[in-house]
């Protein structure tokens, strides 16, 4: 990840966004601005639960308001495809409490 603290280096890369309400949305970063508002293409949500493996919900093109974003992670696609998410069980992430 090169460049400054912005998200330039992640444009057109697959990213994993964790929102303030604890959701995890994976998609291709198409744009962003100063306030960390982001545009995600071909996005889907990964729903974690302890009862069953990770469920994927197709969302499509999304704009997420910066206020609601906690983390933007660069997804290592090789690593990601090597993991069997359908067997992963975990509590959903807690929401951010300011």
């Amino acid at each position: 990840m090169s460049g400054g603290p912005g998200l330039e280096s992640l444009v057109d890369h697959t990213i994993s966004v964790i929102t303030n309400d604890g959701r995890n949305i994976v998609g291709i970063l198409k744009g962003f601005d100063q306030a960390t508002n982001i545009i995600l293409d071909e996005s889907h949500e990964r729903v974690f639960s302890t009862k069953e493996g990770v469920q994927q919900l197709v969302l499509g093109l999304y704009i997420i308001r910066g206020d609601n974003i906690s983390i933007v992670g660069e997804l290592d696609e090789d690593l990601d495809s090597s993991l069997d998410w359908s067997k992963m069980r975990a509590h959903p992430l807690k929401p951010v409490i300011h």
Partner: protein
Amino acid sequence: MEKTQAKPDSAAGNVDYKVTPSKEPLLPHLRLPAPTSATITHINWSSSLFFSYFKELVGREVTVELKNDLAIRGTLHSVDQYLNIKLENTRVVDQDKYPHMLSVRNCFIRGSVVRYVQLPPEGVDVELLHDATRREARGG
């Protein structure tokens, strides 16, 4: 700061006098060995104290605890005016409990969700921060 004014020493012909750097460090007792970039001797505290302080820590291993209780450890890559933080080679501290970011190696953390940043002990100069925060409180 050491007195660097060269006194003529007739006895020693080849005295190696220290040369004063043109830009004196504002806080000369700051001694941070910079692991990746050249050591910065001058900090522009006037812009933003903690922004400047975090910039000094780039390249070091830190743990960022978020307001959703997630703790992420990684190498500090960069920080900006909002104290957004970019980490490299990240791992979540309790990976069994939080497998959500297993395939994430580099991440951007929004400054607004950071609760704590745990710094390497050798990266903290308490005296320096005391002085700087007092100066800031006095209004420069």
